[in-house]
């Protein structure tokens, strides 16, 4: 029998105790007898194992069928699913999208020469060829294609006789030096410098507006195909002296989809690492293969089912299979351990599989249930891709329940475990001096427990202090979906630095009936808003229809700058308004855009713009004149930031409440629930502190991290707590010894779980897609640190809080290990 001394250097435990782990409080299953073990078998076990061949066949057929479905899945990236479409700003945008031609869905192809400037025959020839190639790419709106060569690119000049103008590249261009000089002159007169010609004259841009519906296929534009064709042009024309940069939303989507396909590679890497670890731990090829099969089946089923429901693979939802695979592996370990122990006791492979099933299916279901809660709560966030994760993961958890608790036991009942492995496991369990467990078990005693609690409090306080600098949204320039040094963002940075434009555009929609567009009050209000916005830090420039009116006013007065002003005459205003370019402001639309060009899309900059416009609107909006938020990529990001910030608070509260409630119901004791949940809170706080240090903000991608990290992290605590209480209360050991025993059995499984989950997500850190990398980094941290918390802090808390052994009640049917 074990000693119940207060502190002991050597743990004296009889190995026999190990066999008792399989006892439930009510029943006594003794082994070694032949068929006695069949008594008391629950219904599910009898059903499953008496017809195991049938079930095996069913599972194999299902795997093949769903596998076929899975291979039909295509990667996709729908913009609308990544933004909060229920937010009022986004609703405004979507309602008025048709009228916002100025925004346009276009791709910009910048052709740079590294030798001299663009006014050479060679450059102009190359530019013409590229323009022609782009013209023929399906999806390009040919009538609106713009480059130096297109007829719509003109210069105008005010002369004595009025306006004089012509095409920048004249029809009689012949490549001679005179022709090239003429083009140079025309470019200087055209006002295109800074627009489609760089300020340093070393490059020019081809603007290719896109059709939403491909006119040849009548279907929505296939971004991946489009992106590939544009890339082919880049490859074709780049050489020593010509460099090509490409930006535009369609290119981002194309790069996202392209980057996503590499995710398959990461999966393979994670798969092989985990496979190796499983084998290394067990040294048994048979059981490792079985576990691999059931875990892969989980992935195949999850993806196949998603495909049946009509889902595609987007850069967010494609991460769910990683999690499911890791979950499958970690739960499979429990089955394996249980079966190994039964076989150690002398059971044959079928018996052992049945007993392992019997012991594990309820705790397994309970643990998967808590995992599920975290995912299901993600449905409260009304952003498409997050809800996709919620659906995919919930389905995934159900699938893991079936594969781990039905498919795997059947497979293991056929394969068994090699004798060598059984021996190995026997040796491990018998040891009493495993150094790591001995060290960790110290945390169940006063001295180290105090240390653990003190460190935890320091961590909590330190993390809370650091996390006040937590930022919302994205802080790096360029497309937030891709890395700073991705080709897209490098191209974007180049174009921003050499042209007078910014890629961060925030659009305010002036909502006014067409007949009121030229009212003096509307025009003055617009100008007033523009002036206010120009004073804000972060605002580079503001373009409104009033600017056009003023410039046209001056143009009609021979370009005299003193005429760049707002006329008060209604007739003049109306007249000038009709001359505003249609693709900035369609004359009959009730929406006029106010384009705000920003230095960056940091949350503070966006907030300043939002609050300025909100304040202005509340003061000056009338029935016939409303300043609506928001459109443009920066406008959408502002709305997303607001939504994400709100959701973070809600989600954190819900997840913790749900997990705490589950523990309360399980243990019917507040202190017990606290022991299990408290270590998680420290991890959450530290995770946010890390985010501030590393420069990751709260955004759509990092929101699910809380739910997933906590929802899965609570598993460790439940396993350990259950075992710990079992050894202390039911077997009467002191806490330290009980904890050692817990560690020796469940501890190894918990450590393995922590490592497998972390590996499952850690490979994402290498993804070219920034938000996948961010998610991977944070989840790895959360899984590992939750493991540490459960192994170190939980016993310390139990030491201080759960003193009275008799006072603890457990839901008896949950403790069967």
């Amino acid at each position, binding site marked *: 029998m074990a000693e119940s001394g207060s502190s002991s250097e050597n743990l004296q435990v009889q190995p026999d105790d190990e066999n008792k782990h399989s006892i439930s409080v009510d029943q006594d299953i003794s082994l070694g007898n032949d068929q006695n073990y069949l008594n008391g078998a629950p219904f599910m076990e009898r059903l499953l194992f008496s017809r195991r061949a049938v079930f095996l066949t069913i599972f194999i057929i299902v795997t093949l069928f769903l596998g076929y479905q899975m291979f039909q899945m295509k990667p996709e990236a729908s913009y609308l699913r990544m933004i909060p479409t229920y937010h009022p700003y986004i609703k405004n945008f979507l309602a008025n999208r048709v009228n916002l031609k100025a925004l346009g869905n276009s791709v910009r192809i910048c052709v740079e020469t590294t030798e001299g400037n663009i006014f050479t025959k060679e450059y102009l020839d190359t530019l013409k060829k590229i323009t022609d190639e782009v013209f023929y790419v399906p999806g390009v709106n040919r009538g609106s294609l713009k480059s130096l060569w297109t007829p719509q690119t003109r210069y105008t000049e005010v*002369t004595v006789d009025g306006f004089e103008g012509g095409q920048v590249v004249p029809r009689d261009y012949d490549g001679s030096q005179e022709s090239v000089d003429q083009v140079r002159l025309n470019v200087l007169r055209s006002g295109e410098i800074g627009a489609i010609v760089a300020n340093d004259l070393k490059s020019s841009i081809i603007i290719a507006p896109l059709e939403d519906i491909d006119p040849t296929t009548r279907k929505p534009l296939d971004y991946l195909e489009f992106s590939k064709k544009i890339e082919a042009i880049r490859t074709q024309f780049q050489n020593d002296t010509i460099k090509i940069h490409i930006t535009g939303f369609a290119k981002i989507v194309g790069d996202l989809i392209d980057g996503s396909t590499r995710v398959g590679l990461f999966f393979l890497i994670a798969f092989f690492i985990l496979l190796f670890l499983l084998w290394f731990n067990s040294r048994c090829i048979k059981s490792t293969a079985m576990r691999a099969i059931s875990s892969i089946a989980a992935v195949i089923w999850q993806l196949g089912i998603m495909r049946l429901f009509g889902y595609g693979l987007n850069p967010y939802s494609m991460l769910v299979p990683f999690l499911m695979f890791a979950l499958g592996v970690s739960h499979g370990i429990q089955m394996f351990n249980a079966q190994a122990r039964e076989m150690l006791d002398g059971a044959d492979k079928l018996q052992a599989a049945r007993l392992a099933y019997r012991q594990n299916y309820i705790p397994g279901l309970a643990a998967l249930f808590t995992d599920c809660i975290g995912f299901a709560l993600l449905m409260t966030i009304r952003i498409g891709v997050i809800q996709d994760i919620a659906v995919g993961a919930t389905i995934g958890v159900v699938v893991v329940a079936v594969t781990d608790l039905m498919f795997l036991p059947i497979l293991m009942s056929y394969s068994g475990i090699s004798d060598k492995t059984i021996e190995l496991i026997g040796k491990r369990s018998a040891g009493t001096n495993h150094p790591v467990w001995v060290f960790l078990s110290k945390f169940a005693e006063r001295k180290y427990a105090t240390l653990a609690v003190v460190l935890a409090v320091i961590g909590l306080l330190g993390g809370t202090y650091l996390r006040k600098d937590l930022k919302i949204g994205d802080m790096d320039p360029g497309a937030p979906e891709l890395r700073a040094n991705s080709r897209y963002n490098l191209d974007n940075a180049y174009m921003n630095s050499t042209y007078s434009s910014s890629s961060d555009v925030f659009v305010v929609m002036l909502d006014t009936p067409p007949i009121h567009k030229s009212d003096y009050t509307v025009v003055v209000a617009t100008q007033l808003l523009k002036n206010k916005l120009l004073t804000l830090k972060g605002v580079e420039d503001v373009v409104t229809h009033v600017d056009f009116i003023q410039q046209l006013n001056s143009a009609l*007065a021979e370009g005299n700058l003193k005429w760049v002003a707002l*006329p008060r005459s209604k007739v003049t205003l109306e007249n000038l308004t009709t001359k505003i370019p249609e693709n900035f402001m369609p004359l009959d639309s009730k929406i006029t855009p106010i384009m705000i060009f920003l230095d960056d899309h940091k949350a503070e900059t966006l907030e300043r713009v939002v609050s300025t416009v909100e304040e202005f609107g509340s003061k000056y909006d009338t029935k016939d004149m409303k300043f609506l938020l928001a459109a443009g990529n920066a406008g959408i990001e502002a709305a997303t930031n607001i939504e994400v910030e709100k959701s973070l608070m809600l989600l954190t509260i819900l997840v913790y409440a749900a997990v705490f409630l589950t523990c309360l119901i399980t243990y019917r004791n507040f202190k017990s629930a606290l022991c299990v949940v408290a270590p998680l809170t420290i991890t959450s706080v530290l995770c946010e502190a890390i985010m501030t240090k590393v420069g990751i903000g709260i955004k759509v991608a990092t929101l699910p991290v809380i739910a997933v990290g906590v929802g899965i992290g609570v598993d460790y605590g439940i396993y350990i707590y259950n075992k710990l209480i079992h050894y202390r209360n039911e077997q009467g050991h002191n806490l330290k010894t009980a904890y050692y025993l817990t560690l020796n059995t469940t501890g190894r499984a918990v450590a393995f779980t922590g490592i497998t989950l972390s590996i499952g997500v850690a490979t994402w850190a290498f993804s070219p897609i920034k938000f996948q990398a961010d998610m991977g980094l944070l989840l790895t941290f959360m899984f590992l640190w939750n493991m540490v918390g459960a192994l170190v802090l939980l016993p310390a808390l139990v030491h201080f809080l759960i003193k009275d052994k008799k006072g603890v009640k457990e839901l008896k049917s949950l403790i069967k290990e």
Partner: protein
Amino acid sequence: MALREGPTRPLMDVWFKNDQQGIIVGVFGMILKTSDGGKSWVPILDRIENPNGYHYYGISRSGENLFIAGEMGILFRSTDFGETWEQLILPYEGSFFGVVGNPQGTFVITFGLRGNVCYSMDGGEVWQHKSVGRSSFSGGTWLFDDTLCLVAVDGAIYISPDKGETFKLLSEKFPSVIAVAQSDNDELTVVGLNGVKKINFEK
């Protein structure tokens, strides 16, 4: 007519003889006079013959003469500080956006569309025409040391120390400049659509 229209006609330039008497000119032939330092203004269109209502863009004094320059090459001179006006015919028919002259009356220059200037060294009797640069001139001033400065809409700043014989282009530019004044011995201040800037120069 002017009063009935209300404030819809932009005014383009102003000149004051002293702190009481001044004249302001604007578009469509608008011209007003004040005798009380600007508190009240009276239209004096009847004194100047502009039947087509061409815009007046500049009014400036040079010696004892007052000049108004405007659209379509019109130029008016008054020898009695605005009581009566006569039209002068210049060798250029394009629009002038301003007029500037030296205090001695020995040089007056009108400047305007696409770099065209006309200048006279005898108070307006004989005029010469020149083309300086390609961009329309928007403003000008006479510098302390008998030097002319003109600014153009593309930001070019010209100095002429020899009464229009030569024009030197400064290296610094200020795009969309509208007016210039001398703020120090070697410093100009320019204003325009892009704000204010100080520019150093050498003669």
